[in-house]
């Protein structure tokens, strides 16, 4: 999930949580506020009544002796005032919620009770306001609040999203630059325009890092070239000298043979340097992958090339599969070399009447080449060191530097091809080349 969406979602969730909490607590709060307001009103009314009584006396309220109570309520029974005589020893002074029956209708009231002494008689004053009239205002407030909060949340989510998008645009640009690069030299070096210092620092750090890596790559290339020059020059001097010697007339056959042996040894040195250079060059990306090649054509060419040798050794190379794969972004020479090394290796390690099978197939969008031999197979330890440089399976095989499979592996990595090796001791070895998924 993208950072800006995550941020906006987090904001939304936290707002929802706070709003929810507020909505749960709001009734209690509003009730408290309302009650204290109502209580204030009730006390005010009580003061009003008391001040009237002290002005005009209690008599006008207590018209007849027969009735020892006075009551008055407004037309909607929302409020009432009552006065009654009570015993001297009773002392009431509190506010409570209590039901009253007025004209046969039971209504919940918030009632202020207040007892006072006039002319040696104790009176109880009750001032009440119906609870439902309080509730109506609380409910109204809650409704308005809810609509308002939802509105606020929606608006703020949209603006958050927009703002985050705007704020994180430089980061998008930086990740975009990283996505596009195949190697450090192709890194887009343009500055990202931003006022956010974090992004500025990130951009600068990345650019410096890429420049540094690029420089190291270039240095490595230079070293490769220099080593190749330093090592191959003495080899070529020796080679020319020996070849000139060999061309002399009337050379003793024994000496000829010795010279040829020296040339062979020299060649091993040369091919060793060549192989190491090749690996170094592939790893420092000095080869291009710009060709589109048919794997079938490459395999056919290799089989044709190796067939005379295989037939001479009584080995049968079978390649009947018609399945082909147009591999784009390839280097033909390198891929040829990769398959050649593996198939030639199979030929070398097969005994007479051995069979080498080459099979191509598609599995879930991936092209796979299987090369299997009927040789003696490999142990697990042998498989684990198969692609290591200079670890030959058969140390007595004489020629070759034991680096052929290491080269194949380097080329495979370069083309993002996976190599899987399976082997049954005594039943042969299978190399699977799994090509990158076709998009």
């Amino acid at each position, binding site marked *: 999930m993208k950072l800006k969406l995550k941020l906006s979602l987090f904001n939304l969730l936290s707002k929802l949580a706070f709003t929810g909490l507020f909505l749960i607590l709001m009734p209690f709060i509003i009730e408290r506020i309302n009650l204290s307001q109502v209580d204030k009103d009730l006390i005010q009314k009580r003061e009003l009544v008391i001040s009237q009584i002290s002005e005009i006396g209690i008599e006008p309220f207590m018209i007849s002796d027969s009735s020892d109570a006075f009551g008055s309520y407004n037309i909607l029974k929302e409020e009432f005032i009552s006065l009654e005589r009570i015993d001297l020893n009773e002392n009431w002074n509190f506010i409570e919620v209590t039901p009253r029956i007025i004209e046969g209708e039971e209504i919940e009231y918030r009632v202020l009770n207040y007892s006072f002494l006039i002319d040696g008689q104790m009176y109880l004053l009750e001032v009440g306001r119906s609870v439902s009239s309080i509730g109506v205002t609380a409910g109204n407030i809650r409704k308005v609040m809810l609509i308002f909060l939802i509105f606020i949340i929606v608006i703020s989510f949209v603006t958050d999203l927009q703002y985050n998008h705007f704020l994180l645009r430089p980061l998008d640009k930086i990740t975009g630059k990283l996505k596009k690069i195949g190697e450090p030299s192709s890194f887009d070096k343009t500055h990202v325009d931003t006022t956010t210092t974090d992004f500025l620092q990130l951009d600068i750090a990345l650019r410096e890092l890429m420049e540094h890596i690029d420089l190291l790559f270039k240095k490595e290339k230079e070293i490769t070239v220099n080593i190749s020059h330093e090592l191959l*020059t003495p080899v070529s001097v020796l080679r020319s000298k020996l070849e000139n010697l060999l061309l002399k007339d009337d050379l003793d056959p024994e000496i*000829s043979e010795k010279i040829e042996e020296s040339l*062979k040894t020299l060649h091993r040195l040369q091919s060793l340097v060549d192989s190491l250079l090749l690996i170094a060059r592939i790893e420092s990306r000095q080869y291009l992958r710009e060709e589109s090649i048919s794997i079938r054509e490459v395999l056919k060419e290799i089989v044709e090339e190796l067939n*005379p*040798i295989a037939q*001479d050794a009584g080995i049968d190379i079978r390649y009947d599969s018609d399945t082909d794969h147009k591999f784009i972004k390839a280097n033909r020479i390198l891929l040829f*070399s990769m398959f050649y090394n593996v198939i030639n290796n199979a030929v*070398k390690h097969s005994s007479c009447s051995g069979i080498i099978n080459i099979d191509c197939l598609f599995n879930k969008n991936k092209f796979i080449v299987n090369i299997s031999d009927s040789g003696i197979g490999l142990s697990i330890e042998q498989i684990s060191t198969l692609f290591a440089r200079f670890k030959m399976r058969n140390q007595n095989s004489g020629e070759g530097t034991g680096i*052929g499979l290491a080269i194949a592996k380097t080329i495979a990595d370069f083309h993002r091809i996976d190599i899987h090796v399976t082997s049954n001791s005594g039943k042969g070895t299978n190399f699977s080349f799994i090509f990158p998924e076709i998009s």
Partner: protein
Amino acid sequence: MNVLIVEDEKSLADEIAHFLKSENFLCDISYTGLDASEKIAINLYDFILLDLGLPDYNGLDLIVEAKKTSTEASFIIITARGAVEDKVKGLDLGADDYLAKPFALVELLSRINAVARRKFKVTDSEIILGEFIMNVPSRKLLAGNAEVDLTKKEYDLLQYLVLNSNKVLTRHQLYEHIWGNMLDDQYDSNFIDVHIKNLRKKLNFHAPAHWLETVRGVGYRVSREKWVISKDHDET
């Protein structure tokens, strides 16, 4: 033919000169780029063998200079720098061929000859090998009226031996010529032996080919005397 060898590695330059002199070339040697630049300005050369890795001079500049003074010289670039860019640049500047160090002297000779044939428009015609006729332009080997059915590799092998007749070629020299500088360590002398064996089988089916000799412990050779003798023998 006049050849200028531009190579800072003294002993290598001397060996190349020694070899080319034995092949009847007239050789000059420059160990520095500056010296080469002067020699090119004064003398006329047919070939310039140019090492690109000169310490005092960018080898590619020498090509530009030489082309300006309208020399007729053909350039063959020699370098240990196997980098593709150098090769492309050199060939773009008008070099005729490219050899990576270390190379076989016979390979150098065959490249020079190939460039010379192109340059002087020499059309290879037919080479008579005892009972066989090698038709170079059509890349065919005929035995009487019948064509000997050779694979591409077998033909290449035979032609290389024939063009370098009377020289012993090692298996490695043959391998390198035919497979190029394969990008691996799979040089296998057995390859050449198998191809020669098949080649002999095919030749012997038509007529004996004693001229294709195995030199024990060294390699193979096509002997000019023997093919002439068998030819004479045939005619008499």
